[in-house]
């Protein structure tokens, strides 16, 4: 299939529809408006449900209801809206429902601004909602990857009965790049994706032995039962951690004197800087976590070559993934950080200068 020039917001929406998403509930917010608008245009054409909810809170609870029916369902928002959804996300994780949530991050805290940022890492990866739970969190770095992650996110959500967040940013949402889409799932394939959940989800009943009483629920009033439920969740998270760590190595070698760690939009800029330094014979490697939960701790540790003097973390925040890198490095070499906030994106020249100063 030929490549199409598209904004990230539209590409992820198109990819979601092709992956069998027929239910989408959301509330307008910048800089993800193209996503909700694309869904408004396209969902009726595939006999899907587009519903503009009265609030972010309602949108995520509509997702809870639809996910409780085992159907592929998605919502999207940007940082302040994701904060509002956190209540529902905790319930979805607690009730073990498959759902996909897209966060096109913008500057914070509070209303912040509408420029790209990576300030929601902690919220996405370390909690955000109440209680002990974990999202699978995917961090795209290009429009193509943003689109590819839609189908991967639905597959992961179905496989583990767990909410999956695609943690993008205003840059990826707004910029246009060529993107190639997979063939759309057929109606029969979409039907089969939903059917796999019939053993637990809300679905039509029958008399006699086939009669079921499925409960979509996160309440366990007996402490011992709740304790077991949370422990079982964490057994599932252990399996996810074994299976779903994904990262990219860029220019990693034994010659590296600096190892960078960056994710999403920030990683692209770091790559440009690394390529420039290469021309001067300066060797810098990069680990880019593709999934930021589960986190590639071992990959970061292993990439620290014999000549590495420093691990350098670059993010569009005040240092959030930095904590995970420190856990991975575990004091082996110094860890440094530089970031920009306020929705301001650093340039390759700025990163290059920071790295050059280390040689």
């Amino acid at each position, binding site marked *: 299939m030929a490549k199409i020039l598209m904004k990230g917001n539209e590409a992820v929406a198109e990819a979601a529809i092709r992956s069998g998403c027929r239910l989408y509930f959301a509330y307008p917010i910048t800089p993800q408006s193209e996503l909700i608008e694309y869904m408004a245009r396209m969902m009726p054409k595939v006999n899907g449900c587009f519903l503009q909810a009265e609030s972010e809170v309602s949108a995520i609870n509509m997702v809870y209801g639809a996910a*409780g029916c085992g159907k592929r369902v998605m919502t999207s928002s940007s940082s302040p809206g994701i904060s509002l959804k956190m209540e529902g996300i905790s319930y979805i994780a607690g009730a073990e429902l498959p759902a996909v949530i897209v966060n096109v991050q913008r500057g914070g805290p509070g209303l912040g601004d509408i420029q790209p940022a990576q300030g929601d890492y902690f919220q996405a990866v370390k909690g955000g909602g109440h209680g002990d739970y974990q999202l699978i969190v995917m961090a795209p770095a290009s429009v193509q990857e943003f689109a590819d992650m839609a189908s991967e996110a639905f597959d992961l959500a179905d496989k583990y009965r767990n909410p999956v967040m695609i943690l993008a940013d205003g840059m990826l949402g707004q910029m246009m790049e060529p993107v190639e889409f997979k063939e759309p799932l057929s109606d029969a394939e979409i039907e089969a994706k939903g059917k796999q959940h019939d053993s637990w989800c*809300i679905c039509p009943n029958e008399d006699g032995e086939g009669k079921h009483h499925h409960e979509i629920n996160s*309440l366990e009033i007996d402490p011992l039962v709740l304790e077991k439920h949370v422990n079982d969740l964490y057994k599932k998270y252990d399996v996810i951690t074994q299976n779903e760590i994904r990262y990219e190595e860029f220019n990693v070698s034994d010659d590296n004197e600096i190892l960078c760690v960056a994710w999403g939009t920030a990683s692209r800029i770091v790559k440009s800087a690394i390529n420039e330094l290469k021309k001067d014979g300066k060797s810098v490697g990069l680990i880019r976590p593709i999934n930021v939960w589960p986190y590639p701790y071992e990959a970061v540790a292993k990439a620290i070559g014999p000549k590495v003097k420093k691990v350098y973390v670059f993010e569009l925040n005040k240092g959030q993934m930095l904590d995970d890198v420190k856990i991975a490095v575990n004091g082996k070499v110094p860890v440094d950080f530089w970031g920009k906030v306020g929705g301001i994106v650093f340039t390759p020249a700025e990163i290059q200068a920071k790295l050059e100063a280390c040689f």
Partner: protein
Amino acid sequence: MEKIAYRPESLTKTPFTYCPGCLHGVAHRLVAEAIEEQGLTNKMTGVAPVGCSVFAYKFFNFDMAQAAHGRAPAVATGIKRARPDMHVFTYQGDGDLAAIGTAEIVHAANRGEQMSVFFVNNAIYGMTGGQMAPTTLPEMKTTTSPYGRKTDDIGFPIRVSELLATLVAPYYIERVSLLTPADILKAKKAVSKAIQYNKEGRGFTFVELISTCPTNWGIDPIKSRDWAKENMLPFFKVGCLRDKGVE
């Protein structure tokens, strides 16, 4: 011998968790009977609220969802949109529906969402121990209005049925009482009508059931009903506010 009274098949065998004298059991039974009479038991799903009826998902004998406080109409919307071949209702109290869930109920009603809502109003938060609700009457004492509800400070009770009746889309809105056996028979008719309209895909149906809370009011069950008749019914008048089926 003909069996004239029995536990509806649409209720599980799980014993209710309600206080002695509570009318939730009656309301559950009315909803369950109506679903069974309409032959909808296998195509029905319900959404339980937060509050005393939080465990309603254990009591109805078909698939159920439990929603976050006030969010039941949004959850029911998601269910109905995902499973248009099934039918859905929410069962909510006044703290859940009329305070924290105000946005959800107003907008579900305004969309004319295909669902039935059974709204049990006893003018107080029960589960959390008797705090002031948006429906608490003027001067009524609760644990968070220990000197009585002061209307110049916190306003008057909200009449949800009347509020929703200002919207164009809702198909059926009626307020009934559970305070006497005769009232319960009338309530049954309203609940049945809502479920029948739901079955027929007519749109949004809403039944408010005036109830009591002997435990948190601190009044015995029989006197609670008298108190509600004297104090609640003058403010929350029973009657049909909207029925597009007969208009």
